[in-house]
């Protein structure tokens, strides 16, 4: 069993699946010499004529450039520059219809030739002395990209690091009409072989296989002659079948190897270059002539002289057609590329680019329009014709359903878009178009997915950064705080020292005060005395209350002696309560009077006082009963402690009554007067002061609901309370009858003023209060008064 290499050496050829045999129609052009195209008026040089990214512009509008001068620079590996095909001036850099099926505008450099065709300085490389890197750099700088159609940057393929078994030179040119490579091989076989030599130097393959279709006998003979000196160059005639020129198909034909799906030939140790590319490499390295022109087949029955022309890149298609005697017919189609894989040009101003190998201008009879698309009849002819062993009918199905998952399952991306399936389809379905659309959609989705991935990564990176910044800020703050704390111990010490000093001073003071302890002692004694007295009073009060409650129930059965004691106790209690009230809201002067007061009731008739108190209590209870249901329990559960409340109630009632009187009597008094009167009143009698205060509070409450019907209960109750309380109070304090006469107007003024102020305030805040709220408030205030 011979090895693969032995088989290849022996000239064995294999076959690939499917394929079609369309009429070739190459004879119109292949036998004619290549014509030199005259300089066009303008050259449109797209910045990007290959697969990859456009180079960086290095010329400006108006600049004169020489032939072969680079117009863009290659700043990354996926870029090859474009060059000036002839000397001239850069007219503009603008958008122009691209040589692409989409015909979308692309940036182009518009060059106006000056006719001098003046070369820049040329520095051919000596390949024997040049390094691999120099040669590759020259290939890239000369702007060489795959000239078979794809336009892949050649320096990448030629600079491959992987070991290469076979270098395959693709000279098959299987598509109908096209004979550009054929013409090139006929014209310059030796240059092509020199180019192959350079590639061999770079890739160092075991063997070079040159595949040519059997229908190019002159080219085969020429190449065989040129290769006769090279031992491992094998020129192989492949049978005429479309698409044997496809990369994967030719590999299978020549080596029986299949490129796995989604992989490149380099992965199985094979590199394929187009014959035109080999020629361009030789020109670039040996003559320092960059890729500025190429042979283009201009053919079709609308042309008088179909032929191959050597056209400068950037020449508009119209110039080529005109040169070949183009006679346009109605609705003329002009196709760039072959009839199988080319595309119709929307505009004849489209320029020739590095990958353009054919301009086809057929008549309608020659290449009729597709008939109407019919439904797929599942005949399976497409599957038979498919050179990639795919199932075109299934792909069509899923393309129509837009099912990317299924499409990829059926290896849509292994489709080489050769058009064999559409060619054989009896329903005239443009299958390839469906696949192209589906591929574009899937690519778009993949692009979107990639972009989404990037966006996500960026978003997360941003969040991480923000979080980090936050942490840093926090750490910095903590550091600062720590630094502050470190600095603080000194301060603390200072503070402690200061405190110590202050304490020492206080201690000194205390020591000084100790010397005056005699006085203090007396004071303490007096206080203690007072407390004792209070305790006694409390006891008496308790007894009196008990007695009073008995007296209330059975007033007739009380004895004189007990009454006396009780009366005294009650008087004392009243006095104390008054004193406390006065205490609450008056100055030290009041204290003196309060201290003196306990004696005054005692000096007065105890019985009268007792009677007054009893009366007051009774009235207060009445008032409490009528006043509100809430006040009732406190009045009924008249425990000893609630004498004070009662008194307070009396005072409140009195106050309310007085307030009423004063409001009606003296409305128009000045504000300054009340203040003075207030002070006087306070000095005169704590009781009055207390009353005034109580009056003010009561007034405030009243005024809170001055016009509301619910408030009526209160004044009514107050009225009753007042009439009795006044009577009861009159005998209680001997001073009051005299002073009351003098002070009444003043007090009234004070009360009025206070009441007005309070009323205004209260009105503002409590206009919406409900009856219940009023009642509870009233109770609250009464309670507060008792305290």
């Amino acid at each position, binding site marked *: 069993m011979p090895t693969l290499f032995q088989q290849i050496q022996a000239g064995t050829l294999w076959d690939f699946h499917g394929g079609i045999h*369309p*009429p070739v*129609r190459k004879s119109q052009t292949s036998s004619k010499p290549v014509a030199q195209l005259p300089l066009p008026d303008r050259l449109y040089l797209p910045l990007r004529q290959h697969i990859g990214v456009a180079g960086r512009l290095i010329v400006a509008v108006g600049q004169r450039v020489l032939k072969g001068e680079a117009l863009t620079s290659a700043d990354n590996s996926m870029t090859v520059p474009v060059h000036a095909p002839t000397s001239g001036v850069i007219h503009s850099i603008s958008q122009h219809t*691209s040589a*692409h*099926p*989409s015909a*979308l505008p*692309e940036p182009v450099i518009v060059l106006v030739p000056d006719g001098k065709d003046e070369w820049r300085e040329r520095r051919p490389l000596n390949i024997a002395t040049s390094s691999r890197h120099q040669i590759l750099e020259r290939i890239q700088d000369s702007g060489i990209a795959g000239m078979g159609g794809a336009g892949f940057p050649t320096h990448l393929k030629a600079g491959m690091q992987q070991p290469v078994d076979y270098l395959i030179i693709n000279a098959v040119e299987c598509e*109908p*009409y096209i004979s550009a490579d054929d013409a090139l091989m006929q014209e310059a076989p030796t240059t092509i072989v020199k180019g192959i030599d350079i590639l061999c130097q770079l890739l160092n393959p075991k063997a070079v296989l040159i595949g040519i279709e059997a229908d190019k006998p002159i080219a085969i003979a020429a190449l065989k002659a040129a290769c006769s000196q090279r031992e491992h160059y094998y020129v192989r005639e492949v049978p005429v079948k479309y698409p044997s020129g496809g990369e994967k198909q030719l590999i299978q034909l020549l080596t029986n190897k299949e490129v796995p799906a989604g992989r490149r030939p380099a992965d199985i140790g094979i590199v394929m270059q187009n014959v035109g590319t080999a020629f361009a490499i030789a020109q670039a390295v040996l003559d320092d002539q960059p890729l500025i022109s190429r042979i283009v087949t201009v053919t079709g029955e609308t042309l008088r002289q179909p032929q191959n022309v050597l056209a400068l890149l950037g020449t508009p298609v119209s110039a080529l057609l005109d040169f070949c005697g183009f006679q346009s017919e109605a609705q003329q*189609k002009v*196709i760039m590329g072959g*009839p*199988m894989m*080319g*595309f*119709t040009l929307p505009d004849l101003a489209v320029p020739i680019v590095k990958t353009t190998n054919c301009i086809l201008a057929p008549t309608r009879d020659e*290449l*009729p*329009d*597709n008939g109407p698309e019919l439904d797929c009849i599942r005949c399976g002819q497409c599957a038979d014709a498919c050179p990639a062993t795919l199932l075109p009918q299934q792909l069509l199905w899923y393309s129509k359903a837009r099912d990317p998952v299924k499409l990829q399952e059926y290896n849509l991306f292994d489709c080489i878009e050769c*058009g064999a399936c*559409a*060619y054989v389809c009896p329903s005239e379905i*443009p*299958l*390839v*178009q*469906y696949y*192209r*659309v589906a591929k*574009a*959609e899937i690519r*778009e989705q993949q*692009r*979107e997915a990639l*972009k*989404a*991935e*990037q*966006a*996500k990564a*960026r*978003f997360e*990176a*941003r969040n991480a950064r923000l979080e980090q910044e936050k942490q840093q800020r926090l750490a910095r703050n903590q550091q600062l705080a720590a630094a502050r704390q470190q600095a603080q111990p000194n301060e603390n010490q200072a503070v402690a020292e200061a405190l110590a000093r202050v304490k020492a001073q206080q201690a000194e003071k205390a020591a000084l005060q100790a010397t005056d302890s005699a006085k203090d002692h007396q004071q303490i004694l007096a206080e203690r005395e007072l407390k004792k007295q209070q305790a006694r009073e409390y006891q008496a009060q308790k007894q009196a209350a008990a007695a009073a409650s008995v007296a209330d129930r059975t007033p007739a059965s009380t004895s004189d002696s007990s009454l006396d004691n009780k009366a005294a106790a009650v008087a004392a209690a009243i006095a104390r309560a008054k004193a406390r009230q006065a205490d609450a809201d008056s100055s030290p002067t009041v204290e003196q009077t309060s201290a003196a007061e306990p004696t005054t009731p005692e000096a007065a008739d105890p019985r009268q006082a007792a009677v007054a108190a009893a009366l007051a209590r009774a009235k207060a209870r009445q008032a409490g009963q009528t006043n509100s249901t809430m006040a009732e329990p406190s009045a009924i559960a008249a425990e000893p402690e609630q004498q004070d409340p009662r008194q307070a109630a009396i005072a409140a009632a009195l106050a309310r009554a007085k307030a009423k009187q004063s409001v009606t009597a003296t409305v128009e008094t000045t504000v300054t007067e009340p203040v003075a009167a207030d002070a006087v009143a306070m000095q005169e009698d704590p009781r009055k002061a207390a009353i005034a205060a109580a009056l003010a509070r009561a007034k405030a409450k009243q005024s809170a609901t001055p016009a509301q019907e619910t408030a009526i209960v209160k004044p009514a109750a107050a009225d009753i309370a007042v009439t009795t309380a006044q009577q009861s109070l009159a005998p209680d304090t001997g001073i009051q009858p005299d002073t009351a006469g003098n002070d009444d107007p003043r007090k009234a003024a004070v009360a009025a003023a206070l009441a007005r102020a309070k009323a205004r305030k209260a009105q503002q805040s409590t206009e919406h209060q409900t009856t219940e709220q009023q009642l509870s408030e009233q109770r609250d205030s009464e309670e507060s008064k008792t305290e």
Partner: protein
Amino acid sequence: MTLFNALLALGTLALIFGALLGYAAIRFKVESDPLVEQIDDILPQTQCGQCGYPGCRPYAEAIANGDDINKCPPGGEATIKKLAELLGVEAKPLNAAQEVAIKRVAFIREDECIGCTKCIQACPVDAIVGASKQMHTVIADECTGCDLCVEPCPVDCIDMIPVADSVERWKWDLQAIPVKMVE
């Protein structure tokens, strides 16, 4: 007695398997919800917040917790369809009134930019470059077209412009270019 034995045997088995399951639940615990990951992968990652969540992942989590799948205008119908498939729910029409069919990117009219950096802070993917009181510009390739920078601009110098059709992105038109064949 036999009844007791049976109960005992079953009970023992139940205990053993319960313990086994309990252990497995702890030992082989899935750290994060894989459903959220899957949903997040479907979402377009524009981080635009039009769904009402601060980014795509929070929305993915919300969907996993039962939120509606039709709140993503940048994803459009395609995303809703995928989500419906993944979650096995009914595909609903897009919530928002207008569907964002055209891909757009932000563009800063640089003459009008005052360099306030507000758009930079708003951009969820750091696609705006610039400095304080310096002109800002959008990195169009990184822009997700989320619109979030438009609102904060005090001088309204940010436009959302449709992404220009390029040769790479071009989708073949079925009607315009029929395959040409030779007889």
